[in-house]
């Protein structure tokens, strides 16, 4: 009775096996999101928590990750705040060790933290180059090194690295940022190959122009110009990024690895 009604409602589909409505599985999963204090990272943390994952919200500033974790906990989710500077390798290693003592395994790692220090190459200082490369690229290596071992043991892991459209096509004034974001692609594809035998997947999401604090500083003229390069004609929302990250973090995405997903309104095709 039940089944025939279901079959009727899908009368154009022929089922030769059970088809389950898509519902993402996050049972007992623990996720760690860097740069979770605001913008895209905050949206990712909130979406993962809404699906049932326990989320460790990392940001440099204790107040901002604390506020996000509080908001998640108050709305019925589970979250923990963790204030760490991702560019500080000693601090990251110590944080990972403490986390693994408490939780045994962090199942999902979302490397989202990133900064910009824009300047034309001729005027770009070595300090600004180093700072952006360390914060946006080396930090990803520190977190992965710190958290990967239990994933290999558990034969489960989801690593999602947030790159940028700038890492794919470059952008005047962002040599350091573009280099770091492009570096994530080769890094992630290598992880995908190294850990595939342990059912750990690694993927990249490359946002385009997304409405966050990072892009709020752009002048109205730059914004207008940017919109003209976006076929869908608008800026992205943090939630647009968070939704695909959530899917890639779920159990259901297990056959996808080493891929780069552009979420940019069609800027790069």
């Amino acid at each position, binding site marked *: 009775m039940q089944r025939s009604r279901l079959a009727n409602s899908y009368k154009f589909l022929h089922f030769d096996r059970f088809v389950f409505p898509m519902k993402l599985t996050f049972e007992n999963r623990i996720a760690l999101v860097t740069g979770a204090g605001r913008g895209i990272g905050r949206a990712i943390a909130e979406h993962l928590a809404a699906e049932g994952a326990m989320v460790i919200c990392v940001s440099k500033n204790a107040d901002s990750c604390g506020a996000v974790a509080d908001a998640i906990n108050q709305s019925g989710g589970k979250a923990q705040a963790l204030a760490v500077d991702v560019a500080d390798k000693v601090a990251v290693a110590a944080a990972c060790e403490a986390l693994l003592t408490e939780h045994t395994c962090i199942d999902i790692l979302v490397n989202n933290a990133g900064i910009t220090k824009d300047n034309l190459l001729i005027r770009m200082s070595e300090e600004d180059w180093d700072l952006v490369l360390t914060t946006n690229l080396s930090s990803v290596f520190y977190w992965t090194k710190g958290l990967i*071992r239990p994933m*290999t*043991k558990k034969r489960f892991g989801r690593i999602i690295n947030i790159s940028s459209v700038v890492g794919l096509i470059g952008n005047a004034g962002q040599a350091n940022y573009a280099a770091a974001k492009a570096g994530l692609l080769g890094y992630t594809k290598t992880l995908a190959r*190294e*850990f595939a*035998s342990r059912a750990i997947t690694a993927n990249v999401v490359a946002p385009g122009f997304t409405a966050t604090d990072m892009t709020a500083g752009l002048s109205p003229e730059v914004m207008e110009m940017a919109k003209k390069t976006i076929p869908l004609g608008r800026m992205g929302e943090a939630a647009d990024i968070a939704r695909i990250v959530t899917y890639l973090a779920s159990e259901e995405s297990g056959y996808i690895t080493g891929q780069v997903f552009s979420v940019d309104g069609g800027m790069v095709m």
Partner: protein
Amino acid sequence: MSDLSIEERVKRIIVNQLNVNEEQVVPTAHFLNDLGADSLDTVELVMAFEEEFKAELQGKEIPETDAEKLMTVGDINAYITSKM
């Protein structure tokens, strides 16, 4: 503390980690060539030995430079014994 000998505990871990038969785990057996391990398996094996022999290793990790030389069952037995 386990009543089993070092050799027996090593064998048990290898059988579990690499899904091999006990008879295959002889002192001359090479993890990669004889027991079908891949390079990640060898890393996981070392992690498992560190856990099992925490007391014998005084809670220390096996350094990378030592770990890469531990390629046979006999190597592991000798290494753990030497640290006691």
